[in-house]
């Protein structure tokens, strides 16, 4: 049911921790314990190494592509406590900014919706979350949320940009008043929602349901519904789907997607938010198409409308 259309041999000398496609699926960025970040051109089934970026002094945990309107920009975060922002200038990739304000491993980076400008959220094992905003002319402004999560922050994920009130066309040049929000997950077993208020970031919500470290959070893209949805996964093997029905963001209710037998490390939503991918400690990735509460229509009643649509695994014989 699937084909491998390309196998990219990254030649990383150690474990790969993250691989991300750019916006259009034309480039692939990978990062590894070998401290390097590599970028490949993968158009038409090819694999051309465009850049081998060195600058980190420890395993690199995540990479994130910025929106193409800002140019070709990639962020990476590492055990070496650094966040590096790389940019392609005149055909070559270079370090354009390095942030060293964290005291411990930086575990996760996530770019904000392009409507807000060029803003990067970074979560670190020192418990803090930093927000790097590009102010122009090569300058970055830093805002830090200290003690966002006790012991450490493992993941950050931005909410989609939604203009409050009616979506009237703003006169050109005027920036609409966005309410910026993002979610974070930490070693305090909590998922937190942060909101920018008057230039300051404040903790808006505390979502409690996990009994162990939260490893990843993912805010689902918006398809115009007034509801917001967040997926979180944890060391406790559980994946929760949090939904908030009202626009003011006050009442979030969790729904257990599944309890796995092992740590769940990553969750991510497809572009139109209709499929959730879950990577677990067992050598599988499961894809979920939710239909609880009739939220998502499920035609393929394979599992009575709930549960996994397909699982991706390696090496084992097809059990069917």
């Amino acid at each position: 049911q699937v084909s491998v259309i390309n196998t990219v041999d990254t030649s990383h000398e150690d474990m790969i921790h993250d691989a991300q496609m750019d916006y259009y699926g034309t480039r692939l960025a990978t990062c590894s314990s070998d401290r390097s970040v590599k970028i490949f051109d993968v158009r038409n089934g090819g694999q051309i190494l465009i850049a081998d970026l060195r600058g980190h002094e420890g395993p690199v945990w995540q990479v994130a592509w910025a929106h193409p309107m800002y140019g070709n920009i990639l962020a990476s975060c590492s055990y070496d406590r650094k966040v590096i922002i790389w940019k392609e200038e005149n055909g070559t990739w270079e370090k354009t900014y390095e942030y060293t304000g964290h005291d411990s491993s930086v575990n996760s980076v996530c770019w904000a919706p392009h409507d807000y400008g060029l803003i990067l959220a970074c979560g670190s094992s020192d418990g803090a979350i930093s927000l790097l905003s590009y102010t122009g002319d090569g300058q970055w402004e830093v805002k830090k949320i200290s003690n966002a999560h006790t012991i450490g922050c493992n993941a950050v994920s931005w909410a989609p940009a939604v203009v409050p009130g009616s979506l009237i066309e703003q006169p050109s040049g005027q920036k609409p008043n966005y309410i910026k929000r993002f979610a974070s997950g930490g070693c305090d077993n909590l998922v937190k929602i942060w909101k920018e208020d008057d230039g300051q970031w404040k903790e808006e919500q505390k979502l409690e349901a996990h009994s162990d470290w939260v490893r990843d959070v993912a805010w689902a893209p918006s398809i115009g519904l007034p509801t917001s949805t967040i997926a979180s996964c944890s060391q406790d093997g559980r994946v929760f789907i949090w939904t908030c029905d009202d626009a003011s963001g006050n009442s979030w209710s969790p729904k257990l997607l599944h309890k796995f037998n092992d740590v769940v490390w990553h969750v991510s939503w497809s572009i139109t938010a209709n499929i959730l991918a879950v990577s677990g400690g067992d050598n599988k990735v499961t894809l979920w198409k939710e239909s609880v509460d009739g939220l998502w229509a499920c035609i393929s009643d394979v599992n009575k409308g709930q549960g996994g649509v397909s699982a991706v695994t390696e090496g084992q014989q097809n059990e069917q």
Partner: protein
Amino acid sequence: MDESDTEPPLVVVPGADPSARQLCFAWGPAEVLVCETLFGRAGGSRSRAAAAARALTRSVAGTGEGAPSSSRVFVVRRDQDIYIQTLRKLFNESHGIFMGLQRSEEELAGKSRKAQLVQVSKNYRSVIRACMEDMHQAAVSTRDPALQGQYSTQVSILSAMELIWNLCEILFVEAAAAGPLLLRLLDWVRLHVCDVDSMVREVLSSESPSKHKLFWNVVDVFVLQGRMDEARHLLSKEASANPTSMNMYKILDDLMKKMPVPSLGNTQTLTELELKWQHWHEECQRYLQDGTFASNPHMESICKILLGDEDAILEKKELMTTWYHFLVTRLLYSHPTVKPLELRFYAQSSMDLFLGGESSPEPLDMILMAAFEFEMHQVIKECSIVLSNWWFVAHLTDLLDHCKILQSHNLYFGSNMREFLLLEYASGLFSHHSLWQLGVDYFDHCPEYGRVYLELHIERIPLSTEQKALKVLRICEQRQMHEQVRSICKIMAMKALRNNRLGSALSWSIRAKDAAFATLISDRFLKDYCERGCFSDLDLIDNLGPSMLLSDRLTFLGKYREFHRLYGEKRFPEAARLLLTLMTAHIAPCSFWMTLLTDALPLLEQKEVIFSAEQTYELMRCLEDLTAGNPDKQKFQDDDVETTKVEMLRLALARNLARVIIKEGTVEGS
């Protein structure tokens, strides 16, 4: 969430390392990324620190911990039919039919509307058949056995699709009533049970058909399919070859001729038909019981078939090949006036009798059964599961929806099954480099979520060429998707800037109404001018028009160019005025004043006095403002070139002032 009863299907990524590693996953716009990794440590260590420490010690020690970890990333894509070249026609042409259907007027009511919808259904089916034909040709002409296998599989899939669609057309779109229903079903069977065609051809084309060993098989086939005339024709050959059975033949022939069948022309009511049929049936019965055909087992069996004897019909299993053929034959000979809602009982029992517990029903059988049971939702559901594309269910459901027979299923958020399927189908199209354009139209006809899905997908189309970007832009502009328009223009502007195509970057940022970017690019233009002494992309700057007002810097750029133009046309007073305005109205940035003043030099040096006294005073004031207010006085003074320039300007201004005072003070004529 309830636990699922059945395991979700396991998809194996070919080529992945079978050792117990974990899989890292990322969504691409169309494909997904899968790579082997190890989160934390296999033993369950939770800290990143431990994993990092291991990595560091490993690199320091220089030895690997067991086998080197895999460094491969797999780009995985769901096997979608949109990537099959030969199906391209299917997608393109069905798109046309779909659009036609959406636009078709609903003012036609009743029969005409139904006829219109049936025509649409037939059009879809003919597209499927055309595709089958192409695929078949491809299969026959290729030498590669793998490809041939692929094509052949496709042909069977298309054939199954057409089979199902045809049945749905009869039962749901046309909603054939008792009477015509049977005739339609007969047509359906004749069209789709082709396994016997070659045998038929062989017998008919032989020298003496009645002597052919398969002769009776062919007669049986005709009888089973209700092709009475053809059966009788063949039988007549047999009769003339065997005069002894002439009597039997005549009776059988007569029975076959007289068999009452439903007619399309409404010339008789169902009751009339049933009555006639009853009489005929009894007559057949009498002949059979009298032993009329006793001496010819073939003819006897035919008579039994005419009487609807299940066992007799079932004996001819291999000639029918499918249970639904058996079903229709049964109906023909036992209940020709079957009503649509009665079909389900006959269907179930037919399948049971035919398969006889030897084999279990296949997915196709289940789909057809669901259709016979008029469970439309079930049909769609099963098809969705079995087929590897959304094409079929999306278009079929859309058609059924137009027939107004799909009850709205309780899909909570207001959307319905039709829209759901169309969204899935169209989303799939977007991963294709050219079929995405079809997807746009499908999204347009999804009232609930079409727009937002389009917004999300259209942003991901790689803008590899200017034409493509313009195409995407046009689509967005037509639909007032302003955010997307701005976003695309910004992306193109950024791209152009990176490739040093300033003119292109400027026009894109104007289109994006991006003042900040326009300022940036204008600065680049001006910098270029300062370095090279000339402008690039003159055409663009000359024709800015009102878009000049987008940003101050851009306005300056435009006006500055105008100054040069005026100078070139020797319209010196106008040029002079403009130059001055640029500084006094603060259109020019301070950093540029020196350049402007230097540009004024030739005007000051002209034989004819150009600047008026007042203007000269203004210029002087500007110069003083510039030199006095300059914090970099040190630099100014140290830089010889700069000091010389200032000196020259002061001199020129003074000289001009002198001349102009005289000129203005002179009374005309004296």
